[in-house]
């Protein structure tokens, strides 16, 4: 919302000089509401003077030009040639003389125009950057006559601030210049001069009433209406135009501008109907819920289909406007309007919000109504509007003011609490006198008795409900920067360890040190991504209002996003590994979906010779070792997933529980993701892994006697796996078995593999003698030979 600081000055004194003003604005942003930007208005007008046209003659050589004599002071006039049509004798307008510089930087020179010397220029609005109008010379109006010769910057310069509406969404009173001005007065500690409304003229002579029927009393809690007759619709005076222009509003006509001015000044939306278009003085105004299939064309010329959540202002025939949101085109004020009905009402914020959301239409009015305007604003708004209309349009009040309060607004009258609570929350002692002064500046009356502070809440402060609301007011105006830093005294409480977090962290640590990169992808996927991965899954959880077609469902698998990420990086790297730890989401019987922490690791190599499968397997085994899981992972060959190559995949079990799979990705899927080369991906359930992590290390005694290391070489054929063979190696003294070499190729047969295994023997009682080891190895070999045919020892 845009706020004009010169408008604020009508209520309270704020610094004139730019440095002090900007300093105050900084405090304002800190203590009241953040400022999105600050903009200067009416700058570079020093050379533009107020002038009065005292003589106009025809140009001898050009039909379209006129020669004017313009008065710039008591005894100084200049001759200016102009092509404008709207000039008249006595017109007061902006003038720039020879040598002067326009706001856009152009220097004006005295030049002959078709043979007649022009010593300057009469200016249009747009030339001064004070508007868009270029249809004629800017008419300053009679009120400027007394300023002839003075520089224009004095009257037009302003500093406009745009404030962040979100922060004041609980403060409907601040959606107005008057409300903001009160804050300035509190922050600047300067006097606040409230808007002085003249009050009503004698109402007793007015007999005429208006039929107003509020059908939904929860929705419309107050409705004030009045009929004004014999108005003259015209242009607004310059001061209104300028005020509106500065805050980004276009001047329409005096009537519409007045309603906008009241809105900007005190925050009360008004609606003004052309009385003759809505049935004349005997019409009935209804405030009701919209009917089924009802439509209305709003002021913005759009036809709106109303919903069951809308409320309308109507006469007996039809809807005249969407209540609290936007009026109807049909009853709009136009140049011929003579008689009007002014509406100033209070509506329920929640219903306004629903109504506005249901047709996706927000307006300056609904913006304020949905914050919960106080009922007294409706009355003040009406008074102010009438005052302006009587002054500016020659209109006369025709009816009584009909004021219906259908439901009294709930509000807090007063609050009391222990004075010491202020210090308890803020952490600083503030003197009672200062507290009372701060509250006074914000329009709260307060007193302190027996250490209890009692505060009277003004009607417009509907946000104040309990002690902390008051303490916030005191704190921000006092200034949070005055609260000192100190070493906090905290109660002792032990840190509760979060095992899940720690494990996640450990897994990341090991993978990163193994040259894998952590990625984070979106939790949302779509069916197309699944299709590319050859997954068909109708059980995914759907998002009702997705961000885009690409992100329609919650994922229950990390692999597809992993493939996309591999695809993205393949242009830059030949070999890399990525991993992600994230939740997956599955439907469940409970209220909330089942969230499970999954780990997905990929290894890619452009070079097909690098067996990425075993890279991943090493990672998994390293994780297992690092996390201190006792049991080995069990790999069972095969996978039902279409994205996997069956013969190059395995299901992974831990303590007989399936924790995931390791898959070489199927060429079709690889092609779908434009991935050429080897790609292995594993996805495992961290929740299951977590169950088997040994939490403590129990010390095992170690042997004092030296270990003995013996390597044996086993050549076996394809019918067996290395794992089967190794698992069959058993001996009482055997402490550990390690694979140290696997070889395929010449001079072996094609289906043969040579495996070199290191056997480590340990004895707790004595040093081994050579014969014992020889015996053990023989025993091992004999066992293997009995179990596996055709294996050869070398």
């Amino acid at each position: 919302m845009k706020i004009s600081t010169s408008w604020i000055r009508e209520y309270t004194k704020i610094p004139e000089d730019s440095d002090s003003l900007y300093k105050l604005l900084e405090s304002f942003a800190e203590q009241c509401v953040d400022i999105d930007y600050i903009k200067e208005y009416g700058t570079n007008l020093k050379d533009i003077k107020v002038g009065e046209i005292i003589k106009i003659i025809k140009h001898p050589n050009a039909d379209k030009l006129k020669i004017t004599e313009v008065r710039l002071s008591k005894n100084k006039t200049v001759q200016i040639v102009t092509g404008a049509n709207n000039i008249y004798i006595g017109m007061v307008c902006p003038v720039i003389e020879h040598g002067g510089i326009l706001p856009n930087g152009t220097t004006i020179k005295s030049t002959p125009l078709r043979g007649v010397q022009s010593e300057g220029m009469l200016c249009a609005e747009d030339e001064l950057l004070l508007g868009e109008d270029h249809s004629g010379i800017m008419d300053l109006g009679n009120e400027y006559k007394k300023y002839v010769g003075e520089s224009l910057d004095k009257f037009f310069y302003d500093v406009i601030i745009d404030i962040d509406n979100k922060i004041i969404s609980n403060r409907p009173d601040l959606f107005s210049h008057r409300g903001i001005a009160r804050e300035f007065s509190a922050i600047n500690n300067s006097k606040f001069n409230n808007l002085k409304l003249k009050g009503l003229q004698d109402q007793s002579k007015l007999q005429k009433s208006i039929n107003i029927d509020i059908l939904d009393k929860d929705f419309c809690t107050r409705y004030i209406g009045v009929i004004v007759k014999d108005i003259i619709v015209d242009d607004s005076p310059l001061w209104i135009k300028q005020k509106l222009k500065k805050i980004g509003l276009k001047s329409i006509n005096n009537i519409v501008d007045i309603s906008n001015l009241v809105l900007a000044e005190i925050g009360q939306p008004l609606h003004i109907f052309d009385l003759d278009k809505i049935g004349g003085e005997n019409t009935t105004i209804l405030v009701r819920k919209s009917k089924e299939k009802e439509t209305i064309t709003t002021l913005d010329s759009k036809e709106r289909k109303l919903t069951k959540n809308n409320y309308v202002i109507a006469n007996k025939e039809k809807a005249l406007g969407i209540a609290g949101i936007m009026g109807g085109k049909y009853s709009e004020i136009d140049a011929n309007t003579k008689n009007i009905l002014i509406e100033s009402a209070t509506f329920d914020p929640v219903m306004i919000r629903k109504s506005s959301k249901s047709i996706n239409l927000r307006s300056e009015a609904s913006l304020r109504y949905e914050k919960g305007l106080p009922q007294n604003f409706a009355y003040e708004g009406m008074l102010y509007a009438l005052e302006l209309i009587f002054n500016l349009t020659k209109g006369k009040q025709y009816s009584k003011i009909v004021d219906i309060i259908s439901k009294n607004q709930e509000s807090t009258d007063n609050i009391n609490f222990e004075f010491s609570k202020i210090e308890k929350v803020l952490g600083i002692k503030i003197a009672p006198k200062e507290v009372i002064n701060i509250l006074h500046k914000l329009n709260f009356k307060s007193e302190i008795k027996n250490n209890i502070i009692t505060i009277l809440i003004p009607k417009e402060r509907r946000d104040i409900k309990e002690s902390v609301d008051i303490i916030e007011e005191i704190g921000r105006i006092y200034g949070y920067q005055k609260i000192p830093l100190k070493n906090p005294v905290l109660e002792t409480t032990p840190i509760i360890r979060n095992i899940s977090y720690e494990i996640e962290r450990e897994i990341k640590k090991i993978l990163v040190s193994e040259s894998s990169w952590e990625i984070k992808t979106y939790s949302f996927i779509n069916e197309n991504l699944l299709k590319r991965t050859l997954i068909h899954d109708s059980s995914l959880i759907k998002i009702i209002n997705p961000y885009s077609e690409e992100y329609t469902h919650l994922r229950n698998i990390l692999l597809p996003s992993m493939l996309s990420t591999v695809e993205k990086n393949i242009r830059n790297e030949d070999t890399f590994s990525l991993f992600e730890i994230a939740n997956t989401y599955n439907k469940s019987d409970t209220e909330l979906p089942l969230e499970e922490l999954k780990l997905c690791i990929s290894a890619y190599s452009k070079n097909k010779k690098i067996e990425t499968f075993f890279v991943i397997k090493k990672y998994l085994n390293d994780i297992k070792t690092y996390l201190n899981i006792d049991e080995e992972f069990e790999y069972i060959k095969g996978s039902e997933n279409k994205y996997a190559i069956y013969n190059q995949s395995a299901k992974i079990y831990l303590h007989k529980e399936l924790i995931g799979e390791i898959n070489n990705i199927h060429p079709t899927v690889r092609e779908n993701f434009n991935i050429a080369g080897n790609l292995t991906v594993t996805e495992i359930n961290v929740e299951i892994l977590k169950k088997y992590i040994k939490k403590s290390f129990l010390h095992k005694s170690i042997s004092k006697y030296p270990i003995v290391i013996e390597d044996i070489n086993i050549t076996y054929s394809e019918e067996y796996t290395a794992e089967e063979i190794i698992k069959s190696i058993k001996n009482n003294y055997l402490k550990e078995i390690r694979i140290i070499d696997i070889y395929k190729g010449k001079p072996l047969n094609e289906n043969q593999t040579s495996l070199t295994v290191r056997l480590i023997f340990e004895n707790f009682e004595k040093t081994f003698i050579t014969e014992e080891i020889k015996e053990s190895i023989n025993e091992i070999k004999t066992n293997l030979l009995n179990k596996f045919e055709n294996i050869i020892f070398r």
Partner: protein
Amino acid sequence: MTDIKLLAKNLSNIENEALDKIQSCNNLDRLKQLRSKYFGKDSDISKILSNIKYIRNNEEKKTIGEYSNKIKSNIQSQISDKEAILKNIQIEEEISRNIDISLNKFETNIGSLHPVTQMIDILVETFQYFGFSVVSGPEIETDWFCFQSLNLDINHPARDMQDTFYIEENHILPRTHTSSVQIRTMLNEKPPIRIIAPGKVYRNENQDQRHTFMFYQYEGLIIDKTTNISDLKSILTTALRNIFDNSDIELRLRHSFFPYTEPSFEIDATCMVCLGKGCKVCSNKGWIELLGAGMVHPQVLRNVNIDPNVYQGFAFGGGPERLFMVKNMIDDLRLFYENDLKFLSQFRKI
């Protein structure tokens, strides 16, 4: 009968042969072989000496014994000397060899933690100094935990600040902030409570340099009998000084509005680039907005059955991405979720 002269002659021959061989030996392995050749179980000397037992004359026996010992110790010492020489040569050889220290023969073999993980690590470490525990909660929440319990009724205008994705209309949703973890913790634990809750959050807003529909938040909460705004300022100042490794950072509490805190603030820190003088990074403000905070609203405490007349405390929350962006001068949030290794590789860390 054994001829001691012949024995002596043989021994002398062996000695000569040995000394020759030792003399000409130029490597340590060969020397080792020589040692076992002359001193092993089946060495020639042993064989000869095994004949001594047939000598009857003790005088002769003694003479030949002494002679053989003399030869043995001579060979022994020759080997030892030679060994010392050869070892020396070997060391000389090794240490005189040059390597090209400018080469890298093995590539760096570490990946990197995602920047968000890196920042969360710093946050967790920092707040653990103050005794905060790390907690987590579900990402998919009910309306009550995400909104209603936090004073955000269904028609609260402040809901506009958080455009929500829905799984079930107005009921089940991906959380829009980590404040739901606050509520879950307060329902389950008794004060004093001190937690930090990092995690993913989701908002249905247009993606641009400053917005992504999924991002991270960290939520902090203290509830006890005394913690006040001065404590909030002190703890967050220390924390942010630690996070940015800069003790000149000051905080500014700017009045703000959140339905779940009262008073509420936006917290700005001195711009680390210009130290408050004003620069491009802080849009000439001298301050950088980092997080939101406030004293927990008494109604929120009532909602979780904590008596606001006895307990109070503060909550704060912000984005780890934001901290990381400020720290590393990154100007586009979307980079965090594009997962381009060219971006990720700039922040290598385990």
